[in-house]
């Protein structure tokens, strides 16, 4: 049996179990597939939530901006701390301590600072995505083979050349892992931010359906959001695999 067939069997089995469980229990709470799929159809035909495209676009935009900032900030801070000894000694431990704090504790203050609109979601997505990128840069720099740096220098490589031709390829493997984790967390940050309080975006729709006890719509919205997340991770994993094949 090939993998697609195995996956299909598992999927069908799960849906069947889900259906049975929901019918035995309360179909309103345990929304069965027979109710969720029509709701999904309604959603995609823009009947239940006609403004779905705008919300979806807004969430996607927030994710792109939050992740972009997380990557820029993470690379900047990571290289500054990793390449500059004094900075690294001074701020490295602070960074590690901050990372240990559950990020959700910052969210109320982010809402106070940035309001209920996109800015606070972007800030939260950035906050979550920033740490894995920074830490991956730091780990990657430690991983670079110093002998290769010596070899490059002996052939006349400048600091810049050492950076681009030895450090970056040497750490790419680790860096890619961090960039991918950063994306996943930035996505989570944005969506959790929306759910915790917002007027638009996928999280706000989920909140709305949930608040009105429109559970079938709620499940449909969650499925659409999941597709968004899985799609972004698929892109990331594709990029990662190409980079790994190059450096392995």
């Amino acid at each position: 049996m090939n993998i697609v067939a195995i996956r299909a069997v598992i999927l069908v089995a799960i849906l069947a179990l889900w259906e049975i469980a929901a019918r035995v229990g309360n179909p309103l709470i345990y929304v069965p597939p027979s109710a969720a799929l029509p709701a999904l159809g309604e959603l995609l035909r823009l009947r239940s939530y006609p403004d779905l495209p705008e919300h979806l676009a807004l969430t996607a935009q927030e994710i792109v901006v939050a992740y972009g900032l997380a990557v820029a900030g993470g690379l900047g801070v990571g290289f500054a701390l990793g390449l500059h000894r004094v900075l690294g000694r001074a701020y490295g431990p602070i960074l590690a301590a901050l990372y240990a704090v559950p990020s959700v504790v910052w969210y109320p203050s982010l809402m106070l600072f940035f309001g209920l609109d996109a800015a606070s979601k972007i800030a939260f997505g950035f906050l979550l995505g920033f740490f894995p990128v920074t830490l991956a840069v730091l780990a990657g720099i430690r991983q670079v083979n110093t002998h290769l740096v010596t070899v490059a220098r002996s052939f006349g490589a400048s600091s810049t050349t050492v950076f681009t031709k030895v450090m970056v390829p040497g750490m790419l493997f680790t860096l890619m892992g961090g960039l991918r984790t950063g994306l996943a967390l930035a996505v989570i940050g944005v969506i959790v931010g929306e759910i915790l309080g917002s007027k638009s975006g996928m999280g706000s729709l989920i909140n709305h359906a949930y608040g009105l006890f429109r559970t079938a719509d709620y499940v449909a919205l969650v499925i659409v959001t999941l597709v968004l997340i899985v799609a972004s991770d698929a892109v990331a994993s594709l990029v990662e695999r190409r980079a790994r094949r190059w450096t392995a």
Partner: protein
Amino acid sequence: MSGPPARPVSAVELIRIEGVSKRYETASGAVDAIRDVSLAVRPGEFCTIIGPSGCGKSTLLSMVGGLVSPDTGRVLIETRPVTGPDPKRVATVFQDPGLFPWRTAVENVEFGLEVQGVGGKRRRAVATELLGPLGLRRFAEKYPRELSGGMRQRVAIGRALAVDAQILLMDEPFGALDEQTRVLMGEWLLDIWRRTRRTVIFVTHSLHEALALSSRVVVMTARPGRIKSVIELPQGYPRLMESAELVTLRAKLWSEIRDESLRAMGES
């Protein structure tokens, strides 16, 4: 600065090592790697350094290559003190080949030229031409992890030869090769050396290699490394190992090294 009193540098010296010493500070205490080594290398010479493990041969080579600065003394190349790597004049084959794992064999050979800004086509042509005699023609597109230890070392040799520097520092370049390949590679290197009139400083543990290739053999003492003796070899090639002269030289070289190796072993 300690070391011998300064002599005027004569035109027949390309490299002049003046009373260099190096001590490494490590967590488990200081290590005197080499102490007060002086040596002059003539242009076009094939100078071999031989000595027990840990006596500072690699350290000495790194000083000539500008990668390690001596605590005392200095190294001069054409009367100018070495302060850092000088890739236009010095190319190194390292003991650990140090290939870039994300580059294919041919891309590794091209590295030095790439750093110097040589165009893609030119450097590919130079590198490809070198791969043939190195026995790597069919492995040009392979990554280091796909090559055997000996092949990796040959790629490292190609990388050093590609930049066409006058001085070639070779730190046990054939160490990972089997005996037969070693002899063939030695013959090939000898040919390159004689055709291109390079100056070679060569580190080896092999008496045979030292006798077959060198114009001069420098024997170093056990750590801290000093120069124990310098043995001049006859000029002609190929060296006939069975000739009376070489048999005598071999015995002499062996007795010099034997004592130091015993000392080095007794110490560790």
